[in-house]
């Protein structure tokens, strides 16, 4: 491959490119009801096609989706990264958390890190997330990341809402950035017990 997939480390997570041994975890989620907002549930072959295509996406675009691992145990929690297959109006920041790993703030921590990477290293000036309007967990996460619904932006096929992420300058030492960092640190602190029910 011409593209070397970088490794990103956060407080609790390490993000690496998709690897062969991670495929069963990916397949379990994408062939399940959890994938209903991401074009699924897929059959086994479609899941394989998508997983392989995520690696090819890195090669073609120079960026793509990372696999989210626990820093200590290396187990996988989901994926996050930049995603722009053919037909996408703009480059997207996307994420998915395995259903039994939700509620620990992993998606927030990983997506915050990949957005920072794509802004700094990828020189992205803006980013969107295409979200099914019924996918309330993901809409909530987009909002916690500071994204705002952009009714003017082109959608993929009219069935998705477009959330526009804050521009790089709006995340550089701002109150918004501090708030996200604080929420992530709260999740990472074992003494912290959220008052509400954490969704992602």
């Amino acid at each position, binding site marked *: 491959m011409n593209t070397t997939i970088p490794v990103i480390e956060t407080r609790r997570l390490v993000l690496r490119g998709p690897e062969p041994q991670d495929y069963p975890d990916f397949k379990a989620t994408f062939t399940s009801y959890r994938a209903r907002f991401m074009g699924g549930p897929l059959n086994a072959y479609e899941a394989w096609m998508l997983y*392989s295509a995520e690696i090819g996406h890195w090669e073609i675009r120079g960026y793509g989706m990372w696999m989210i691992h626990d820093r200590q145990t290396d187990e996988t929690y989901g994926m996050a990264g930049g995603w722009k297959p*053919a*037909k996408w109006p703009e480059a997207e920041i996307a994420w998915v958390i395995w259903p039994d790993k939700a509620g620990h703030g992993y998606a927030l921590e990983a997506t915050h890190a990949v957005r920072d990477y794509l802004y700094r290293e990828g020189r992205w000036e803006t980013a969107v997330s295409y979200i099914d309007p019924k996918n309330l967990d993901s809409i909530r996460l987009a909002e916690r990341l500071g994204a705002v619904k952009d009714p003017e932006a082109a959608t993929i096929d009219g069935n998705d809402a477009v959330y526009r992420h804050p521009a790089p300058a709006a995340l550089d030492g701002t109150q918004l950035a501090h708030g996200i960092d604080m929420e992530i640190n709260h999740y990472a602190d074992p003494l912290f017990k959220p008052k509400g029910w954490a969704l992602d």
Partner: protein
Amino acid sequence: MKEVLIPTIETDRLILRAPAPADVAPFAAFYASDAAKFVGGPLRDFQVWRYTAEVIGHWQLRGFGRWIVARKNTPGAIGLVGLHAPPDWPEPEVGWMLWDGNGKGYAAEAARAARDYAYETVGLNTLISSIAPENAASIRVAEGMGARLEPKNFEHPLFGTMAVWRHPAPEALS
């Protein structure tokens, strides 16, 4: 992850090489046409983009895969040929699709190179090809390579019922 470099192979008339973004357009034109009806077609452009990405990713995940085929004397992709083995597949397969230059033996020339690569470089001991029962042109290629029809069909998850052709083992070719 250990990164796999997709090798380039030359035959008498052809080059087998890694897919490039410029190959999507001719590949998509093939999949928009009636000629793709035996291989899951028609597909839309954006689906073929993903298919191309899948071909690249397959190499990284399995260590082998499919190549874009081009003529040595003419630029531009004319086919997709090589090895295919998703985790739920019955066995590793050698497959071929040709959308330009049909009738000149290009598919067989590229498929033989892919089969040699599977046996000599990857170390596989046997190979199948799954072919739609009505795909006469592809069946001729399989027969020309010495493959034999197996009694049991394969239910392809997207393409439907496919006949299974078994290739001669490495010993039978040496």
